[in-house]
Structures are given as C-alpha cells and as structure tokens.
C-alpha cells in the first residue's frame, strides 16, 4: 500500500502564484519540515517583500511581513527575544542580495542563530522582471533589454558560497532546486538540516533555492524548468557548501 501524502495542516487557502512558479513547492516543504520537527506552534515566518508576500494568505502560523530586504534583521530581533522559537527568514534574491545585502551579510557575519531561505529566480519577479544581482550574464530583463553586461554591472553574486567560505562559524549552507521530484526531495533534506541546526543552537543556516519564473522569463512553465536545469545550474551548482558538524 502506498504511503499517504497529505498537505500540512498549517497550509490552507490557495496562494495566487503564477502557474509554474516554484514558491508553492518551497512553502509546502518548509511547512512539512516544521510539522515533522514538531514545531507547528513554535515558529515565526518572517516574510520579506516579493511575490512570496502573497504566501501570508495560505499560511496559518505566526508570521511577520518585514520591510523590503530587512527580514534577516527583524529575524535577528525575534530570535534574541524568543531564543527557543524557530525563526525562518523567507526572502527572494532581490530582497536578500540586492536591497538587503547589508542585513544578509551582517546576519551571517554575526552568526545569528536563524534560518534564511532565499528563493533565487534571477530577477525581481514581483515588480515586473527587473535585473537583480543574480541575473545571469547576457540574460534579458526589463532593465537590461540587450542582455546583462557584466563588464559594467559585475558578475552574479554567489551568496551561499560567500557565506560558506568567508564565515567559518556558519552552521549549514546549501543550494537546492525545485525542478524535479529528486531535486525537491533533496531540497527538503537541506531545509530540514537547516532547521535542526537552528534548533540545536549551532548558528546561522542558509538554503538557497533555484526557482523558475515563467512569467517574467517569457516562457512556459516547462521551458522555464529546462532553463533552470540547463542554464542556471551551470553557474549556480547545487549541493551542500557547509555541512553541519557532528556534535
């Protein structure tokens, strides 16, 4: 007999993401991990500004809509005041790596005991697909209509690698993707590891997720999955960059 797979009780109403958007999968995985770790009534979702701000509608848990880019900073405050609560900072690439890069780096540098989950879709999805720090070289967006010129705008940022190599105290750093069932299952392990690291007071944990954005890339959902697999993964490799130390 097959194993029962049911939506976590924390999730209710449908969220109005675009068809094919990866955010729905990430929200569900986070809720599943919270439920499996028994933290349903002991969690604060700190949501930044982006398409994923819509997710507040579907999550029946304590949550906070942070200022743009400042979710890591407000999560730090929540953790200081509630040291036993699971704090999740749920952000996008424009939120965490452009507008909030100062807060994101400072939080990692201070090794705050929180979990940051960033969903990287290589543009500013909510505002119409503008270029962000993670836009790939040559990618056309509404603010780089001839393709991103890395001679004048710099190369795309690899934040997980930066944290893993430069901040040796960080507890857990990984990058996953939502483009196949195998990748989704791996991503769930990464998210669970990050939460366990926080609950064991091991320090800062970060999981980046490569997610398709069919609407702003001008593609069908299936084409956008192919783009993540064939184009984005060549620049942003998947895997664990910093594993938890066995204590």
């Amino acid at each position, binding site marked *: *007999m*097959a*194993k*029962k*797979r*049911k*939506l976590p009780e924390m*999730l209710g109403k*449908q969220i109005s*993401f*675009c*068809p*094919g*958007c*990866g*955010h*729905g*999968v990430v929200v*569900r995985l986070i809720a599943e991990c919270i439920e499996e770790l028994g933290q349903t009534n002991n969690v604060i979702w700190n949501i930044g500004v982006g398409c994923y701000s819509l997710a507040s509608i579907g999550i029946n848990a304590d949550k906070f809509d942070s200022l743009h880019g400042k979710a890591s900073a407000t999560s730090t405050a929540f953790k200081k005041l509630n040291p036993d609560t699971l704090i999740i900072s749920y952000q996008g690439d424009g939120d965490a790596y452009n507008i909030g890069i100062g807060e994101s780096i400072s939080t990692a540098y201070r090794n705050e005991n929180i979990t940051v989950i960033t969903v990287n879709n290589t543009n500013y999805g909510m505002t119409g697909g503008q270029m962000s720090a993670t836009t790939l070289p040559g990618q056309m967006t509404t603010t780089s209509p001839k393709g991103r010129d890395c001679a004048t705008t710099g190369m795309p940022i690899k934040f997980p690698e930066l944290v893993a190599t430069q901040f040796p105290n960080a507890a857990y750093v990984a990058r996953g993707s*939502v483009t*196949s*069932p195998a990748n*989704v*299952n791996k991503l769930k392990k990464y998210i669970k590891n990050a939460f366990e690291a926080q609950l064991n007071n091991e320090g800062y944990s970060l999981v980046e997720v490569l997610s398709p954005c*069919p609407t702003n890339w001008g593609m*069908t*959902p*299936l084409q956008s*999955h192919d783009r993540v697999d064939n184009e984005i993964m060549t620049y942003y490799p998947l895997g664990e960059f910093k594993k938890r130390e066995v204590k």
Partner: protein
Amino acid sequence: MQKVNVRQERCKQCGICIVNCPKEAISFAEEINLNGYRPAVVDNEKCISCGNCYTICPDWVFEILGEEN
C-alpha cells in the same frame, strides 16, 4: 479504489505533473475550473501512487490516499 485525490479547483494547468508522472497517468480535463484552467485528472488504473505529482505540484493539487507512514 481511488488512489489520488485531485483538488481541481486549485489547478493552474502548468503541466509540470504531466511530464514528471512515470506512468503517463495524468492529463488535462475537458471542462474548465473556476479560474479558467483545464485541471489535471489522474487515470486511476495507470497510477502507481508514487507521489511524484504531490512532490512537484506547486499549487498543492494532489493528495496521495494511502496508509499513514
């Protein structure tokens, strides 16, 4: 016996479940749902309850009806 519960009112017709189904058991319905999409339907005879559709669906359409654990 029904193996998968499909909540068709949530489906947005992205088609990701169709390419990730190992038995080609999922297709689009003829009728449209309230959002104007043709929702996914599961062929119960071909389905093997693997859970791939539950895992990959971004809109929480599928529930696998099996045993606990």
